[in-house]
């Protein structure tokens, strides 16, 4: 097993796209799941989708959740409150930027690191410059 990753986004396509991008780096070695959009497919978040993804992704090594915008955090917190305590304790919500965080976390998780290490790797995405001043 490895640390799982769940992408919570207001957009189903955004969540799936991030999973696609991060999955390319992880080569299918980890549980990497999208929970995007509402139940009827419109923009928003769905507690049922998030709960299902968390249950599916979370093995003994736990899960890191990456989110797009503020209310995705709230719905994830509510989903966590409804899970059993032992499962809940193995899930962490990341503050990392979605794309960088997901790619970094996927690489780290695929190499067999633990949840602390995967979470820390994702956080490093906040400090990665995209352009370099000359």
């Amino acid at each position, binding site marked *: 097993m490895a640390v799982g990753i769940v992408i919570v986004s207001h957009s189903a396509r955004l969540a799936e796209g991030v999973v696609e991008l991060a999955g390319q780096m992880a080569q299918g070695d980890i549980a990497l799941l999208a929970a995007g959009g*509402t*139940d009827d497919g*419109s*923009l*928003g*978040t*769905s*507690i*049922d989708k998030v709960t299902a993804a968390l249950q599916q992704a979370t093995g003994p090594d736990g899960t890191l959740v990456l989110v797009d*915008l*503020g*209310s995705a955090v*709230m*719905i994830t*917190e*509510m989903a966590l409150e409804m899970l059993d305590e032992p499962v809940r304790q193995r899930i962490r919500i990341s503050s990392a930027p979605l794309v960088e965080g997901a790619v970094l976390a996927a690489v780290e998780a695929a190499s067999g690191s633990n949840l602390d290490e995967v979470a820390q790797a994702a956080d490093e995405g906040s400090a990665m410059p995209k352009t370099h001043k000359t």
Partner: protein
Amino acid sequence: MPLTTADIQQWIQQSALVLHENSSYLTQLDSDIGDADHGINMDRGFQAVKMKLTNMEPADIGALLKLVGTTLVSTVGGASGPLYGTAFLRAGINTTGKQTLEAEDVVAMLDAAIEGVKARGKAQQGEKTMLDALLPAVDAARQAQSAQVTLEQVLQQTAAAAENGMKATIPMQATKGRASYLGERSIGHQDPGATSSWLLLKALADVSSRK
């Protein structure tokens, strides 16, 4: 006269009606400073609540409000889902086993609900959110209740304070929620969440007045 389980049920039905009627208005407010879905989301959530209530005879006020909360969490889809969902869940926990609510029970219920919103959204007054309507409303409710006026008057003063709070969001710059991405451009617009909060509290006052 205290509010009964039937009155609270009436409040929820009235809220569903008012939010349906104001759906375009709320979405218009949200399109100015947000993601243009607040009216649609609230209407979807409360229509789902209405459906649930047609097949249900609630055991007490707490059970009714908890059902409203869980339904909103799973159907609203926007930030208002977890926020109003938490508010109704906390209100339901606070009123567990109760068949009637006196003024002091209503104040305690509102207090529990609004503490839930604060905890869930990690927001404070002055950030251009629903709390700018809800916090003055619960303060007004507490003051009115300690002044020993009737429950109907307590609820009218609560709704009036929510309305003032809602209007006070117009000059505010948003620092929480989707509108915060607009920075200074959020100034000059009434907050949609504060508006739906006022509509809900006004519906409660109206149900009480009609008794």
